[in-house]
C-alpha cells in the first residue's frame, strides 16, 4: 500500500510538473516612468556652453512618459557604475538611472559617455559615447533623450525633430516662416514676407518646406529648399491655391485649386508637372493629407452639408466618409501609420472648437484639448504620439501640444508676437 501511495504521490508531482502553475496578469498601470538623470561629471575649468543634463531632463519630462527626479533630491551623484547603489535608487522609487561623463577631447571637441541603468534588474540598458562641437551639444542632448525614450517606451523619440511655424507682429504687417527644435529652442527664420504665410508643410526628408503666400495677385504655392533658401513656384492658378501636402515619397504635392469654380483636390507631380484632379463635387473639398500608403488621400468636404472628413482612393476615385460624430470635423492629420485621425472638432453648433483624435480601427472619438481656445491646425509628431496645434491663450496666438491619448499637455514657449500654423517635421535620419 505504501508503494502504491508513493506512486500516487510521484504521479501527482509529475502531473504538476507538466502543468506548471501559470498566473495570468491582464493589466498594468499606464503612468509615467520614474527616472533620474544624474548631473554629468565635468572637470573643465569653464562652464559648459549647454547643460546636457538639463536639456535631457526637460525633454523627458515634457514627453509626459517620464517623471524626472530633481538632482537636489538624489542621495548621491555617481558618474561610474561602481558608485551606484541600486538600493538607494530603489528607496527613491526610481526605476532608471542615467549617469554620464563629459570631457574635452582636443580643441572644441567634447566627448560624452552616458549609461542607462535599470534599477530593479540592476543591469545596464544602454551605453553610448558621442562626440560633438560646442554648438552641437544641444543636438547631442536631444539625441540622448531620443535614445533613452526609445529604449524605455518602445517608441522612437522626436526630441531631435524640428517644427515649422508662422509668426507675425501684432499689427500683422510682417510675417516670418520659422523653424525651431521641437522644444521651441534655436528658432531660425526661413523666410520673411510682407504677405501672409499659410500652411507650411514638410517634405518627408525634412529638406524642403511647401507653403502658401497670399500675395496681392492671389494665393500661390511655393516649395523652398531649406539648405539653399531657393524657392520654387509650384502653383499660381486662378483663384485659390492652397493647402499643400507632400506625398510619402516626396515626389508629389496634393493641393487645393479653385480654378474650375469651387475648391477641389489636385495632385501634381513635382518633376513632370503632371496634374491630376482628384475630387469633383459642387461642395468644397479641401485640406488634403496623404495616407501612409501614398494611394489614398483624406480631405475635408462640405458635401454632407457640414464639414466632415473623407478618404479618396487615387486609383479608383472611390470616396468614403470617415467621421460622423459632431457637427464640424476638419483639417485631419494621420497618426501612427494611419490608425488615428487627428482633427479640429466641434461637437455641436455653438460648442468650442477642440482638437480630437479618432481611432479608425475602433471608431472611437476622443476630445483632447480643453484649456485653450479656438484650437486649430493640428500637426502630428512623426512618432504619432504628440499633436502640436495653434490656439488662443491669454489673448495671444500660441502653440500648444497634446498627446494623441490626451494625457499630456504643454504650451510651447514663444518669444514674441503671434505664433500659428505649426508643422511638425519628420525624423532627420
Amino acid at each position, binding site marked *: 500500500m505504501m508503494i502504491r501511495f508513493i506512486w500516487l504521490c510521484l504521479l501527482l508531482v509529475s502531473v504538476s510538473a507538466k502543468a506548471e502553475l501559470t498566473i*495570468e496578469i491582464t493589466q498594468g498601470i*499606464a503612468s509615467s516612468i520614474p527616472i533620474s538623470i544624474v548631473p554629468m561629471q565635468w572637470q573643465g575649468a569653464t562652464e559648459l556652453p549647454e547643460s546636457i543634463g538639463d536639456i535631457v531632463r526637460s525633454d523627458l519630462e515634457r514627453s509626459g512618459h517620464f517623471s524626472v527626479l530633481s538632482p537636489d533630491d538624489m542621495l548621491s551623484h555617481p558618474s561610474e557604475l561602481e558608485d551606484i547603489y541600486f538600493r538607494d535608487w530603489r528607496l527613491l522609487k526610481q526605476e532608471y538611472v542615467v549617469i554620464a561623463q563629459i570631457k574635452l577631447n582636443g580643441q572644441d571637441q567634447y566627448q560624452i559617455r552616458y549609461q542607462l541603468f535599470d534599477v530593479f534588474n540592476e543591469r545596464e540598458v544602454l551605453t553610448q559615447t558621442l562626440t560633438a562641437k560646442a554648438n552641437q551639444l544641444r543636438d547631442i542632448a536631444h539625441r540622448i533623450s531620443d535614445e533613452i525614450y526609445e529604449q*524605455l517606451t518602445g517608441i522612437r523619440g522626436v526630441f531631435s525633430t524640428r517644427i515649422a511655424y508662422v509668426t507675425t507682429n501684432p499689427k500683422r504687417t510682417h510675417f516670418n516662416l520659422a523653424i525651431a527644435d521641437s522644444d521651441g529652442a534655436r528658432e531660425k527664420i526661413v523666410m520673411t514676407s510682407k504677405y501672409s504665410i499659410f500652411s507650411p508643410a514638410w517634405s518627408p526628408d525634412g529638406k524642403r518646406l511647401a507653403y502658401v503666400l497670399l500675395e496681392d495677385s492671389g494665393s500661390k504655392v511655393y516649395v523652398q529648399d531649406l539648405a539653399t533658401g531657393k524657392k520654387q513656384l509650384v502653383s499660381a492658378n486662378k483663384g485659390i491655391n492652397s493647402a499643400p501636402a507632400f506625398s510619402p515619397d516626396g515626389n508629389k504635392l496634393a493641393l487645393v485649386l479653385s480654378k474650375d469654380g469651387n475648391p477641389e483636390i489636385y495632385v501634381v507631380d513635382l518633376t513632370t508637372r503632371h496634374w491630376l484632379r482628384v475630387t469633383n463635387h459642387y461642395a468644397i473639398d479641401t485640406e488634403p493629407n496623404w495616407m501612409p500608403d501614398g494611394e489614398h488621400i483624406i480631405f475635408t468636404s462640405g458635401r454632407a452639408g457640414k464639414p466632415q472628413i473623407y478618404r479618396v482612393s487615387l486609383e479608383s476615385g472611390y470616396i468614403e466618409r470617415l467621421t460622423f460624430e459632431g457637427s464640424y470635423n476638419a483639417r485631419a492629420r494621420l497618426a501612427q501609420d494611419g490608425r488615428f485621425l487627428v482633427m479640429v472638432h466641434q461637437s455641436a453648433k455653438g460648442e468650442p472648437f477642440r482638437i480630437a483624435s479618432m481611432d479608425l480601427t475602433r471608431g472611437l472619438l476622443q476630445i483632447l484639448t480643453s484649456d485653450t481656445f479656438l484650437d486649430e491646425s493640428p500637426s502630428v509628431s512623426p512618432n504619432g504620439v504628440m499633436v502640436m496645434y495653434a490656439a488662443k491663450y491669454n489673448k495671444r496666438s500660441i502653440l500648444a501640444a497634446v498627446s494623441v491619448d490626451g494625457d499630456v499637455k504643454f504650451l510651447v514657449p514663444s518669444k514674441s508676437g503671434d505664433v500659428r500654423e505649426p508643422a511638425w517635421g519628420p525624423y532627420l535620419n
Partner: protein
Amino acid sequence: MQLFPLTDPRSFGIPVLGSALIILLVLVLLSTKWMNTEPVVTKVPKHINARLVQVKKAVPKKTIKKVKNKKPKKIKVVKKPAPKPKKVVVIKKPVKKVEVKKPIKPLIKNKPLPKPVPLPESDLFSALEEEEQDNNVADLLSEELLLKQADEEQEAIMSYSGQIKALVESVWRTPPSAKHDDELILRIFLVPTGEVIDVQMVASSGNQALDRSAEQAVWKVVQFPVPKDSILFEKEFRQFKLKLQPSTARL
C-alpha cells in the same frame, strides 16, 4: 369458512392481518437498524479523524524534509515520530523486514494500534494480517484523503494566485508602445519566504520595453505571498509562470 371471512368485505380479517404485519415489520426494522447504525457511527469517524491528521501532516513532511532546509516546522515533525516508534518496536521486534519496509507506517496506524498490541504476543502472521487489513482500509481512506487534499490545495492555489495577480498588476507599469494583444511569459523563482531570486523570460512579447517593464514589475514586488504549507509551496510556488498581457492598453 376460514378463508371466506377474510375475503368477505365485512370481515376485519385483512385489516387486522395487514396492521399486524406492518407492526412486525416496523419492529424488525427498528431493531436491526439500531444494531447496525450504532457501531458504524462510532467506528467511521474514529478512523477518519485519526488518519486525516496523520497522513496530512506526517507523511509528506518526511519526504520534503530532505529537500528543505531550516524551517521551524522541523521541530514539530521531529517531536511527533520520536515517541511512536517505541510502541511499534515492541510489536514487531522479531520481524525486521516489516520494519524496514514500512518506516512511515506507524504514523498512519497510530490509533488502531493500541488494540493489536496486547492480543498477538509477537506473531508474524497476525502482524501481517493486521497490516493487510489496515492496508485495505488505509488504501480507501488515502484515496479519499487525496481527493479532499487536492480540493483544499486547489483552493489555496487559487487564493495565492489571486493575491500575486493583484500585486503584479498594481506595480506593472506598461510602456505606451504596449498593444492590448501583446503577450509575454515569465518564469519566477522564489524562496520559501516568497522572495524573488530569479526571473526568466520564457516567451518574449517582441517589445523590449514591455518585456523589461514586466521583469521590473516582478522585482518591484520583492516578496510574494506564498502558502506556508511547504509541500504546496514546493509543488506550485517555488517556481511558476506569469503570463502578462496588457489588455487594457489603448493600442
